[in-house]
């Protein structure tokens, strides 16, 4: 039930300022890379130069002999489980007999200085015997190709068969789409500080992560320790976008701390970071749409191939997201979809903002334009005719119970004014190619493209990703305790806003974010506002209930009649009124609450089942200027309308929208990790290009606020949708400008002009 909450100062619905905002802007915020401890040593990792090789021998003696080196560890020094992983533990802490991707950790050192570490790494002698590199994901499906991992080359296959698979349409369009490997490119690279307990049988870790408790579980298993002997505290996180879901340097840092009995700091540089975390899956998606003569979809056929790289990470969940979102935000009764996630000797891929849906969306939105083109219809009209509504059934058989205002999103986006026509005398920097001054106004053609998406929020397939929060009310002040990773998204702000509104307080302290309370689940899947927000809301309501009981007893008022108005407890039916501050003097009320979403199910062999919790929708319209001859682009404007349920902090929502659009633009026109024969060719910000201010478009955003009855505060997650359909919208605008097909992203200059 969503009730109307009273709006207190900086409560729910306001643009409350971030508690960490000033510190971040002024440079005083302590990121995990700023961590330091007395008597600290530095750790560093030796990585495989080969994408696939047998390890013949490792000789660490010379490194150990170097002055300043305190420890050198390899696979044989791992006391617990030798492997880890989010879904299946298939990834070695250190490569033992085989390395399966370029950059795989082989050994780690602890020394008095990062430079000593570097020299020590040079002194470790590893003899490799190169093995054939499996770099083609299609080859990984070939049963005659040797398995590169004991678990085999196929990570998961899922088929979806819905309705009548034999239906055909009057119009049939198909293509094979290629989506490149994107990097999350968070600005704060991986870093952690591990402090060993004095008895050497436990460790305290400060780490920048998305999910403290999952890290704790995986680290403890590898250390062979009980989870309570591995306590985690969140280090200041400089962005995440999925890249901090998997373990990176956590186990190595803890092992070195336990080996040396001294604090260990590890930190990756940008180059190492490209090898130190999973990336967005490159994918090949074949789709065939059948439509009737009015453009209404009759059937979808699709085949997804996700390259998971050397280890499983979250590939199986990414695959499920891909195949279950194949239809996009459109009605479709009949479907035959096959999806495969495979192992190769390419870099491991896993979670990134949009999680499998980005790949599906690029394909289905490109297909919607093909249907429009085949029938000479407006791309908007085709989308409106097929738009999904609340109550519709997905190809998995699941009924959309979430608010699903797809038509409204498209209509409202269409009403956003287009940017002014290109000026005949523009600022040269605003042209395609920008500062390169290669294009002139006369060379530029403008295109318009659309993208609409559906994205599941929260975890799927039977997983209970609950969240825990504790609220304490004392002397008119609230304090909140949770293990929710603040990665920049602003949950710390939302949490304070919820407590202010529910409890009528102004001051809300935030306690340390650590494992001294139950799990909050991961900061991913656009889930924390819903899940941890629900937990904070629940804990605050329990506290309020007890407060009303105490106040009611003291003042002889029925507690059920009491409500919070601004900063007072009020009996709206009588004259009673007392300030929260007054009422809580000498009183301490503490309550803890776990929020669970409704249960979900696994898919059956035909891909049927209620596997997702809820869905969020968004529409994007892109206006792009293209220099067709040089293949250069300038994204002029993105208009968007997003289904947010309810904007708890509109400014924060806008921040997610603008950031997500920049990230989606990156995938559309420049961001790609280039891998050849298993080797990464551009592991630097010199050659892995992120959009600059000159690449970023004007963003005109509107919000549709139809509170979702299932969401604790009516608010849907808003983090992922902004980056999903903006990519196909931009590519569609490029196609519109030049009048030809481009079946891949990112779009490179040569894809446009050659």
């Amino acid at each position, binding site marked *: 039930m969503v009730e109307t909450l009273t709006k207190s100062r900086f409560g729910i619905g306001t643009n409350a300022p971030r508690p960490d905002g000033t510190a971040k802007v002024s440079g005083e915020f302590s990121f995990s890379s700023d961590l330091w401890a007395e008597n600290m040593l530095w750790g560093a990792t030796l990585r495989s130069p080969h994408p696939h090789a047998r390890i013949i021998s490792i000789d660490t003696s010379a490194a150990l002999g170097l002055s300043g080196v305190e420890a050198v560890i390899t696979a044989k020094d791992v006391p617990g489980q030798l492997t880890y992983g989010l879904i299946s533990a298939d990834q070695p802490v250190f490569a033992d007999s085989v390395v399966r991707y370029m950059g795989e950790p082989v050994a780690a050192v602890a020394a008095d200085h990062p430079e000593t570490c*570097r020299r020590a790494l040079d002194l470790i002698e590893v003899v490799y015997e190169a093995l054939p590199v499996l770099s083609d994901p299609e080859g990984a499906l070939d049963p005659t190709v040797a398995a590169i991992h004991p678990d085999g080359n196929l990570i998961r296959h899922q088929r979806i068969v819905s309705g009548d698979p034999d239906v055909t349409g009057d119009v049939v369009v198909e293509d094979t789409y290629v989506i490149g490997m994107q990097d999350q490119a968070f600005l704060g690279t991986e870093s952690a500080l591990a402090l060993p307990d004095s008895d050497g049988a436990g460790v305290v870790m400060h780490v920048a992560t998305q999910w403290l408790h999952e890290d704790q579980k995986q680290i403890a298993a590898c250390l062979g320790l009980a989870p309570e002997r591995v306590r985690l505290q969140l280090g200041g996180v400089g962005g995440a976008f999925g890249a901090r879901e998997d373990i990176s340097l956590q186990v190595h840092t803890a092992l070195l701390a336990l080996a040396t009995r001294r604090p260990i700091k590890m930190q990756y*540089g940008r*180059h190492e970071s490209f090898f130190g975390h999973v990336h967005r899956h490159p994918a090949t998606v074949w789709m065939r749409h059948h439509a009737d003569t009015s453009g209404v979809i009759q059937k979808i056929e699709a085949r997804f191939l996700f390259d998971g790289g050397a280890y499983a990470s979250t590939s199986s969940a990414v695959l499920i997201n891909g195949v279950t979102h194949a239809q996009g935000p459109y009605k479709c009764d009949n479907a035959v979809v096959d999806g495969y996630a495979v192992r190769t000797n390419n870099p491991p891929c896993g979670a990134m903002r949009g999680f499998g849906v980005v790949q599906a969306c690029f394909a289905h939105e490109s297909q919607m334009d093909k249907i429009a083109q085949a029938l000479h219809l407006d791309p908007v009209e085709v989308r409106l005719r097929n738009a999904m509504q609340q109550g519709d059934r997905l190809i998995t058989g699941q009924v959309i119970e979430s608010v699903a205002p797809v038509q409204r999103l498209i209509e409202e986006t269409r009403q956003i004014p287009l940017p002014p026509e290109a000026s005949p005398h523009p600022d040269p*920097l605003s042209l*395609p*190619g*920008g*500062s*390169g*001054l*290669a294009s*002139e106004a006369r*060379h530029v053609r403008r295109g318009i493209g659309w993208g609409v998406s559906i994205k599941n929020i929260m975890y799927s397939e039977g997983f209970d990703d609950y969240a825990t929060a504790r609220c304490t009310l004392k002397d008119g002040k609230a304090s909140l305790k949770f293990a929710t990773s603040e990665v920049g998204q602003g949950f710390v702000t939302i949490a304070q806003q919820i407590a202010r509104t529910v409890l009528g307080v102004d001051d809300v302290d935030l306690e340390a974010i650590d494992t001294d309370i139950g799990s909050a689940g991961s900061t991913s899947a656009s889930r924390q506002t819903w899940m941890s927000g629900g937990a904070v809301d629940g804990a605050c309501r329990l506290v309020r209930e007890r407060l009303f009981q105490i106040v009611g007893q003291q003042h002889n008022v029925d507690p059920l009649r009491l409500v919070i108005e601004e900063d007072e407890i009020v009996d709206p039916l009588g004259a009673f009124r007392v300030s929260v501050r007054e009422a809580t003097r000498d009183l301490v009320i503490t309550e803890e609450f776990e929020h669970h979403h409704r249960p979900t199910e696994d898919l059956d062999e035909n891909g049927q089942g209620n596997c997702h919790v809820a869905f969020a929708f968004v529409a994007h319209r892109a206006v792009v200027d293209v220099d067709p*001859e*040089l*293949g*250069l682009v*300038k994204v002029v404007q993105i208009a968007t309308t997003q289904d947010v349920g309810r904007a708890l902090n509109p400014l924060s929502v806008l921040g997610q929208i603008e950031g997500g659009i920049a990230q989606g633009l990156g995938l559309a*026109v*420049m961001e790609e990790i*280039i891998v*050849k024969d298993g080797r990464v*060719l*551009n592991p630097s910000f*010199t*050659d892995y*290009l992120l*959009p*600059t*201010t*000159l*690449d970023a478009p004007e963003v005109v955003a509107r919000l549709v606020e139809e509170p979702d009855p299932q969401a604790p505060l009516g608010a849907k997650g808003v983090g992922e949708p902004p980056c999903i359909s903006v990519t196909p919208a931009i590519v569609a605008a490029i196609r519109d400008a030049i009048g030809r097909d481009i079946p891949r992203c990112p779009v*490179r*200059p*040569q894809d446009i*002009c*050659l």
Partner: protein
Amino acid sequence: MPIYTPTSVREATEIFAENPEAMLLAGGTDFMVEVNFNHRKPSSVINLARVNELKSWHLDTQTSVIRIGATVPFSQFESSEFEQLSPALSHAARTVGSPQIRNTASIGGNLGTCSPAGDSLPVLFALDAQIEIASLQGTRSLSIHDFMLGPKRNALSVGEIVAAITIPVASGFQDYAKVGVRNAMVISIASACFALQDNQCRIALGSVGPTIIRCNEAEKFLQDYITQSSPPDLETIREFSRLAAVAAQPIDDHRSTATYRRHAIEVLARRLAMRSFSL
């Protein structure tokens, strides 16, 4: 590691003579990257930040020559005063990195590094720049064409410092254009400088060969039309740009393909030539 901070070119050359293995530090935007990546481990550094005579540029109105100190940062070429004297170098400077990088990165650094993607180099090649080189033995002057030998290779001998670059004041149209896969802060995948200097057609290409390429055939072809009273027609300019593209020696790498680079050169050459004739 000793870091020397001389205050004159003379002092710098003395230190360099005593420490021939020393690295010269100007803006540091190339050098520090190499140090950070451990590609270079200098045993000593000569910091040129306090050598004032390297930090400014002067116009000799008598000879119409601009003499540019080696450590002049690219941001100084962005001024409208400089743009009037040398539009191509000014425009090339604007394409370098970000404002922060342009505030420190120097034109001498482009010569020290000698990357074919160095943004100022096609301009220096098109204008037949002279490089003034200082050492304990005195100074010598070298044409840019003899200075840049290949990727990251130049004609500096042990103990020699680039002191200044001289280029003529623009006597006709000149411009620079660059293609990269981002609208700012990007390494060029193809670039070109076109100039009509003293009624001579010049075109130099960047990022499409081991060194900067002057397109002699294309220049000669267009030259015949420049001296005529009526401007060349579109077909002539197309042939000119085709010849420029033929001169390119591009390769495939992770930034682009040889085919695209050659195509981009043809487009850039045509557009720059058309700009020059106001077509």
